[in-house]
């Protein structure tokens, strides 16, 4: 049988490698409401209102962190920075302002998997107006495909489900659709992932699909990405 934990983490790690859009290493400045650039374009780089971005490379620590894009033009990215901390089960959300910093090279802003992640079986509290993602690893079938049964091939199938919670009413469909499409591309049919001593493959007979946007009554709009997977392993019957 496959190592379910390894399989689960392989899928999660794949999701963690997501890059929806990025400036790459660029020359960027910070203002009190976000970031600017003299060359290049935030629009061309693919940023949309509602995206969760991570910033790095700035001299002032307050400009490095996570934020939600609230407006985009070619030269200006307006960002609401946030810091979420959980102490003894109590969550606090700070919204620090960015600090003015002159343009300099070697800085990066990237929209990735939201920094708030509801991994399975871990306590998670959503923070208002900050996107988050939730996962489910769903093992399904397991059957012997070949004989002899003692060393035959087992085939296991299941789903990995990622639920992207965008902020309702913030930026329309752009941020959620671009983000989920980028995730979908990460799990293209036939994608192989190493899971311990086995290989997990995204199925191609029925394959990854994203759902419609589901408006929820608590400030979120959810889009579900369903990834069917298949894995083969050698059957071992314990003595």
């Amino acid at each position, binding site marked *: 049988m496959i190592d379910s934990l390894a399989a689960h983490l392989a899928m999660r790690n794949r999701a963690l490698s997501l890059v929806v859009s990025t400036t790459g290493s660029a020359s960027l400045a910070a203002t009190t409401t976000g970031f600017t650039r003299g060359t290049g374009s935030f629009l061309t780089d693919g940023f949309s209102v509602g995206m969760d971005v991570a910033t790095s490379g700035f001299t002032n620590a307050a400009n490095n962190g996570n934020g939600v894009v609230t407006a985009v033009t070619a030269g200006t990215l307006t960002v609401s920075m946030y810091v979420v901390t959980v102490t003894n089960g109590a969550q606090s959300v700070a919204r620090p302002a960015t600090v003015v910093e002159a343009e300099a090279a070697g800085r990066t802003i990237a929209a990735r998997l939201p920094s708030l992640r*509801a991994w399975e079986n871990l306590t*998670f*509290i*959503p923070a208002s107006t900050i996107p988050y993602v*939730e996962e*489910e690893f*769903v*093992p*399904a*079938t397991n059957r012997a495909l070949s004989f002899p049964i003692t060393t035959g091939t087992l085939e296991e*199938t*299941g*789903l990995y*489900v990622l*639920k992207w919670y965008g902020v309702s009413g913030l930026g329309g469909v752009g941020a959620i659709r671009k983000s989920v499409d980028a995730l979908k591309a990460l799990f293209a049919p036939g994608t192989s992932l190493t899971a311990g001593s086995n290989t997990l493959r995204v*199925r191609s*007979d*029925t394959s990854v699909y994203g*759902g419609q946007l*589901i408006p*929820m*009554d*608590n400030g979120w709009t*959810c889009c*579900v990405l*369903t990834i*069917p997977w298949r894995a083969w392993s050698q059957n071992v019957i314990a003595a």
Partner: protein
Amino acid sequence: MGAFADQVRQFTAKAEQLSNDVYANVVSATFNSIVNGSPITGAPGQPVGQYGPGYHPGEVGGELKASWQVSGIETGDALISTNSNHAVQNEYGISATDGPYVQHTTVGGRHSVALTIAGFQDLVNTEAAKAQGFMNSASGFAGETGG
């Protein structure tokens, strides 16, 4: 020659009947996979049963399970649907309120539609294999060794 033609006609009629039966049985198996769960698809089925401690004590659920229905089998365009507001939330495991989705019964689970879609071909193969066995048996071909 007439006897052979009659045999072919009977065989064709039987094949058509089995084809229709396979279709109906696939619809039924799909419905059952979504609603009751299936070892072929791995779908857990819809949650139902005695609620968990502290949640509607003494009551038995089942509204979601009972909301699923099939229509259009006779027209060859079967539709499996639900009119429950909870169906989408349960399928995807998304909570109507802040915080995680919580299932209040140990029976059934989430993603039954997605798992049924993923295992649909296996459902078809299973029903076709049943029909194949019946066809062989009915036509007298079963056990033939040739020559």
